[in-house]
């Protein structure tokens, strides 16, 4: 068993594509003039006939992918999450989500959330999960580290439905080794706990693990769930968390409206009402280094720990 790889989750994209080709999946990949950042070019270098760039034209890219899927290929498309789905939501709806109950187009959007950093608010996608979860056939996945992201790319490449995978720009600490097996729709309990559950995705998973350490210092036992799949959400894991810990905190690099927190809250009110606190990004951003921005938006272990105390205080 190797050590977990610390790398940006976007670096896992070409690795996952190469794995899919090795596994015999008829993959094609398309970029829209950001392949140096999405890392799609690395796949193109290895498989030039399977890779296209369409220039700065996200709408066209989505349509082309739909055509590929209709002709039996497994197309992946990549850009920044601010443009994909931001620039082409209607194309994702009309050309991908609706035909035949969903054409098998795989969207891998990099630079999700505020940790895109210095490019500022226009580049910081905090709406993408909300948009993509409304497209009925889509699975929506926000991996937490390189290994999970790679396995998520491989996993969606082997389904017959459309999928959205959000990756990030900054290098993040590795969590999983190559022994890990990602499953769409399955949360991972990274730390057991009995007083409260921190449910996070993406970059916030590492933050939640640190928050659990802080809480442990005050004898609060915090469970940590990595809820990489926002849709379909792992209802059983949420219900168990509510039953067994009685208080929930969600944490995401996204608006609290329409993201992970909303999905978790729905499961709670439908099944197991429990106090819940939402940590996310509910204002537009600014430039800065990615770790400075996590502080600026209070996406920190201290903030999550406080949210946990608040949720615990509301228990009956």
């Amino acid at each position, binding site marked *: 068993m190797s050590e977990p790889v610390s790398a940006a989750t976007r670096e896992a994209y070409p690795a996952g594509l190469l794995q899919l080709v090795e596994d015999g999946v008829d993959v094609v990949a398309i970029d829209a003039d950001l392949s140096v950042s999405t890392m799609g070019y690395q796949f193109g270098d290895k498989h030039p006939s399977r890779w296209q760039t369409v220039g700065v*034209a996200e709408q066209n890219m989505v349509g082309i992918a739909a055509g*590929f899927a209709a002709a039996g290929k497994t197309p992946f498309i990549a850009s920044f999450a601010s443009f994909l789905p931001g620039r082409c939501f209607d194309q994702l709806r*009309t050309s991908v989500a*609706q035909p*035949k109950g969903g054409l098998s187009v795989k969207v891998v959007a990099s630079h999700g959330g505020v940790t895109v950093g210095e490019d500022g608010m226009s580049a910081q996608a905090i709406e993408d999960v909300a948009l993509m979860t409304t497209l009925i056939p889509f699975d929506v996945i926000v991996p937490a580290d390189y290994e999970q992201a790679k396995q998520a790319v491989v996993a969606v490449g082997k389904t017959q439905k459309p999928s959205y995978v959000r990756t990030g720009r900054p290098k993040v600490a590795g969590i999983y080794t190559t022994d890990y097996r990602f499953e769409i729709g399955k949360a991972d309990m990274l730390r057991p706990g009995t007083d409260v559950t921190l449910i996070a995705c993406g970059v916030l998973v590492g933050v939640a693990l640190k928050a659990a350490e802080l809480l442990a210092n005050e004898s609060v036992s915090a469970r940590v769930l990595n809820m990489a799949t926002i849709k379909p959400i792992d209802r059983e894991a949420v219900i168990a968390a509510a039953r067994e810990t009685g208080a929930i905190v969600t944490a995401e690099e996204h608006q609290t409206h329409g993201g992970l927190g909303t999905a978790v809250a729905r499961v709670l009110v439908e099944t197991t009402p429990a106090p819940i606190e939402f940590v996310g990004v509910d204002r537009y951003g600014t430039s800065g280094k990615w770790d400075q921005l996590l502080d600026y938006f209070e996406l920190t272990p201290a903030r999550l720990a406080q949210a946990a105390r608040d949720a615990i205080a509301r228990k009956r």
Partner: protein
Amino acid sequence: MSTALSAAVSVDELKDIAKRVRADIVRMVHAAQSGHPGGSLSAVELGVALFWNHLRCDTANPAWPARDRFVLSKGHATPFYYSVLAERGFFSTELLSGFRQLGTPLQGHPSMNAAPGIEMSGGSLGQGLSFAIGQALAGRLDSLDYRCFVLMGDGELNEGQCWEAAMAVPHFGLGDRVIAMVDRNGIQNDGFADTIMKTHPAEMFRGFGWKVIECDGHDMAAVDAALTEAKRPADQPRCIVAHTVKGKGVSFMENNPGFHGKAPTADQLVQALAEIEAGL
């Protein structure tokens, strides 16, 4: 291999089929009391010449991998599209009477594979040419020589995505695989195209590197010849700009923006069918 094309159908026969399609269109829109007759009637000759004389297809095997693809990008022209598919034999003409009604496979805008021959969903304009590029690139990867024909409206060309796709077709060298057809009827939803948003389809496609073939879109022989020319092997992609009349064949619909998306009354239906039969 399944039959690609039956023997060429004569222009006189094509004209008879066109009459049937026009009658289907007004009947369908009347029965549904909704739908888009104007831009359906303008496209009839394009569709009939294409489906009977040029599109390589097998109605008994609509998923035949080597078939030519037809993409209705101006997705509101479903009365025309469904009639052509039914009259060509993809499905029963009896289905046409359920157009736009609860539970029908023939929705107001096309839903991919809901009925045999429907290649793509539509209704949000500007998306067909991009879809055809993907299909054409896949065909090239798979060493299949099918073509993708895309029917667009001139109002639709307001959508920016059309031009993202128009620049990509020559860039990807898809001249022999993607053929665009513009139904240049000069009217869009809110009125005459020249007042809503003036476009110059021929000049614009030429500017994007296409060879443009202009024709009278209601002269069946001319449309048939334009399609023959568009299919000649060449690197440069071809766009047929067919000059048409919105509502063609029904006097009170012709060149009338009011019938872009409006159904005829019972009396108007009787008049329309008589005029279509007389070959106005």
